C-alpha cells in the first residue's frame, strides 16, 4: 500500500476517535461543572479537561480564563485547535477524501455526512442546554464510523492501519484522562469529595456501569486504576488498546513477510509491561509517573510507526 494511503487511513481514524473522546470528556465536565465550586478550585474541572485534551498552552494564549463558554468554544469550534471536534471532523474528512478508494462506501458516508451536518450547524446548536445533545450526536457519529469500518472493511492492510489509529488514539486518551485525576486516585483515598471525581474518571471512558459489573462493589481508587489500565475486558483500558495495537502491527508484519522495526518492539514492550505488571508496582512507582511514561511512549510509538511505514 502507498505510504500516503496508510498515513491518511491512520490519521482519519485517530481524528475521528479524538473527536469522540473530546465529546465524552466535555460531557463529563459539564456534569461536574454543576458541583465544581463546592468541590473547591473554581474552574478546576475545565482546567483539567484542557490538560487532558493536551492543548492548554494554546488555549491560554487565546482566552483569558477557562470559563465554560471559552472551553466549549475551544474544544468544539476553534479552528486554531487541531484537536477540537469540528477541526477533527474536518481533518478526518480531508484525509478520507484523499484516499476515498481505500474506504468502503459506508465509511465514507459516515464521515462525509457527519462533516456536511457540522458544516451547516447553527451556532446555537452547541450552546447551553443543547450542548449535551450535540455531544451525544458526535459520539454517535464516531460509533457509526467505527461500526462501518468494523462491518465493511476487508481484513487487509487498510483495515489494520485504520484500527491501529483508533486504538493508539484511544490508549493515549485513557492515559490522559486518568492522569489529570491521578492525585485523587490515591490507594488510601476516602469517599466524600473524591468520590465524584472517581465517577467522573469512569464516565469519561464510558466505564461506570462496567465497573459495577466487574467488581460488584463500591467505587475504590485502586480498582478504578486497575480497570482502566490492566483489565483486558474493558475495551478502553490501556491493556485492551495495546493488545490490539500489538496484534495489528503483527498482522501488518506478517502480511509483509515478517518485516519488522522498532515500532513492533516498542509496542510489544509496552504491552508486556501492562500484561505482566502488578497494580502495586504502579502505585509504588507513582500513578502519575506511570501514566506520564505511558503517554510519552505512546507518542513515541506513533512516531515509530510513521517512521517505519510512512516516512521510510
Amino acid at each position, binding site marked *: *500500500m*502507498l*505510504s500516503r494511503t496508510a498515513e491518511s487511513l491512520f490519521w482519519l481514524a485517530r481524528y475521528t476517535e479524538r473527536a469522540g473522546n473530546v465529546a465524552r470528556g466535555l460531557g463529563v465536565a459539564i456534569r461536574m461543572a454543576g458541583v465544581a465550586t463546592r468541590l473547591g478550585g473554581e474552574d478546576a474541572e475545565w482546567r483539567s479537561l484542557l490538560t487532558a485534551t493536551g492543548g492548554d498552552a494554546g488555549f491560554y494564549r487565546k482566552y483569558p480564563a477557562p470559563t465554560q463558554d471559552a472551553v466549549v468554544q475551544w474544544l468544539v469550534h476553534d479552528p486554531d485547535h487541531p484537536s477540537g471536534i469540528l477541526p477533527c471532523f474536518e481533518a478526518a474528512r480531508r484525509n478520507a477524501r484523499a484516499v476515498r*478508494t481505500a474506504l468502503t462506501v459506508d465509511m465514507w458516508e459516515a464521515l462525509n455526512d457527519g462533516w456536511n451536518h457540522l458544516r451547516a450547524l447553527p451556532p446555537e446548536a452547541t450552546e447551553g442546554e443543547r450542548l449535551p445533545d450535540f455531544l451525544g450526536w458526535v459520539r454517535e457519529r464516531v460509533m457509526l464510523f467505527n461500526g462501518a469500518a468494523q462491518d465493511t472493511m476487508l481484513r487487509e*492492510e487498510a483495515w489494520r492501519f485504520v484500527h491501529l489509529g483508533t486504538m493508539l488514539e484511544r490508549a493515549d486518551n485513557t492515559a490522559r484522562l486518568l492522569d489529570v485525576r491521578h492525585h485523587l486516585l490515591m490507594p488510601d483515598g476516602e469517599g466524600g469529595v473524591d468520590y465524584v471525581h472517581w465517577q467522573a474518571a469512569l464516565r469519561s471512558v464510558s466505564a461506570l456501569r462496567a465497573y459495577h459489573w466487574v467488581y460488584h462493589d463500591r467505587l475504590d481508587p485502586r480498582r478504578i486504576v486497575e480497570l482502566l489500565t490492566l483489565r483486558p475486558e474493558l475495551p478502553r483500558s490501556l491493556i485492551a488498546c495495546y493488545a490490539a495495537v500489538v496484534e495489528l502491527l503483527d498482522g501488518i508484519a506478517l502480511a*509483509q513477510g515478517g518485516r519488522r522495526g522498532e515500532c513492533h518492539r516498542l509496542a510489544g514492550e509496552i504491552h508486556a509491561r501492562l500484561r505482566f505488571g502488578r497494580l502495586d508496582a504502579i502505585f509504588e512507582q507513582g500513578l502519575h509517573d506511570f501514566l506520564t511514561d505511558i503517554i510519552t511512549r505512546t507518542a513515541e510509538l506513533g512516531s515509530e510507526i510513521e517512521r517505519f*511505514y*510512512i516516512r*521510510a
Partner: protein
Amino acid sequence: MAGSAAFDEMNGLDGDVRGPYAEIARWLRATPREQLYRKREEAELLFRRIGITFAVYGEGGDPERLIPFDLIPRILARSEWEVLSRGLSQRVRALNAFLADVYGTREILRAGRIPAMLVTGNELYREQMNGFTPPGGIYTHVCGIDLVRTGPEQFHVLEDNCRTPSGVSYMLENREAMLRLFPRLCARHRVAPISRYPEELLTTLKSAAPSACKGVPTVVLLTPGPFNSAYYEHCFLADEMGVEVVEGADLFVQDRVVFMRTTAGPKRVDVIYRRIDDEYLDPDCFLPESMLGVPGLMAAYRAGNVALANAPGCGVADDKAIYPYVPEMIRFYLAEEPLIPNVDTYLCEREEERKYVLAHLDSLVVKLAKGSGGYGMLVGPHATRDMREEFRARILARPADYIAQPTLALSTCPTVAEQGIAPRHVDLRPFVLASADGIRILPGGLTRVALREGSLVVNSSQGGGTKDTWVLEDDLVAAVSAESARSQSQFQSQGGGPGGC
C-alpha cells in the same frame, strides 16, 4: 449562421427521422415528458451519490458541481463510426510522427512544410526532449480529438488534445447510467460496448514500459491531488485499472530510478500515466517551484528507467497555431489525404489573415491560441458590439495569441430542455490510445452538449452537459419494427453476442 441552419442528427435536414434514430424517435414519442423529468432527477441522484463532480473555478458558489447529464443518447451508425475511426487513427499516427520528428531530425521543418519558428519558438516545445526517443517511439499515448459535425457526411476536427485529455470517465459513467436508467431502451439497440476502456488503457500503458523493465511493469497514475478538477476521473481510472493513484510526494528518484513509497518499503515504478502538466513534472527540469512533481524524474526518464505517458512536449502538436498544419503532417508522414478535414483557421499573427479576421469579427469565432476549456473566447455572431471591440483591441495588441475560425453550424441532437425536447448543439471527443503495436479506439466518445438554446459552447466549464454516445453494432434499417427489435434483443441475451451496451 448557427441555429436554424444546423443539421439535426435525428431529424436530418428535411425532418425525416434518420435511420440510427428510428427507435429513439419512437421511444421519445411514446414516453410521457413527466417520466423523462423523473428519470432526469434519478440520474442526478445517481451521479451525486457516485460523486462525479467537475470543479468550476472563478464563478463563486459551490466549486464541486455535477456536469448535467442529458438522457437522450447521441447515436452514430456503424458506417459513420468506421469513417471516423479510420480518420482518428490516421490523425493520431501523424501527430506521433510529427512529435518524433520535431524532437528528432526535424524533416518536416527542413522540407519547409511547417514554419520552423512555429515549432521551435513555441512555448510548448520542450528542449528537454531533444535527441531522446521515448520507449516505442510513442509520444501521445492517450489523445482526445474533438470533432464537430455540420452535415450528414461532414465531420471536422476542431481541436487535438495530445497532452492530458480528460473526460473519459464521463463517457464510461454515462453509459453505466443509461444501462441503469433505461435497460430496455439499451437492449432494443445493439450498442457497441465501451466498458473495456480501462483495460485497453492499461494495455497501452504497459506496452509503453521501457526496455529496462523486465517482468510485469508497475504502472501508476500521477495526479496533482484532490483539488484538481479531474481528481474524480484520476481515482476512477486508477481504480478500474487496479493501479495506485500517486501524488508527487509519493514518488522519489534514486540513481535515476523511480520508486513509490509504500508501507512495505520503496517499490520500483515503470510507467507513469501522468495527469499533471509538463511544467510541474520535475522541479529540477521545469518550474523549480513546483510542489506537484518529482525531482529527478526527467533524468530517470531520459535514462530509460521509466516511461511517461504522455511524453513531455506533446503540447507542440496540439497547439492551436500548429493545428492548421495537421493535414500537412498527414500528407508528409503518411502520404495519405486527411480522412477528417480541419476547420478553416486564420492565424492572427499573419498580416493578411489578421485583416480578414478583423473585418469579419461578427461572423468568426476567435480563440486564444493557448487557451482551453472555452475560456477567453469570442463567438462573433452572438457577441455584443463592445465584446467585439474588446477582442479587436486584444488581437491588435497580441496578434500571435489569437486564431479565428468560421462559426460552424454545429449539428444538434434532441435534448431534454425545460420546455420539452429541443435540439441542442453537440460535439464529440473520442479517445484514441496509441502504442507501438497500433492504435486502439473504443467505439464512441464523450458527447458534449451546449444546454443553452442556440449556444455553441459545449465546455463543461461553461455550463455544457454530456450525453451518452452510442455507436450501433449494425446499421439499423430505417424502418426496423419494434417487433423485430425485440426478437433481436432476445437472441442477444441467449447468445451472449457482441451487443448489450
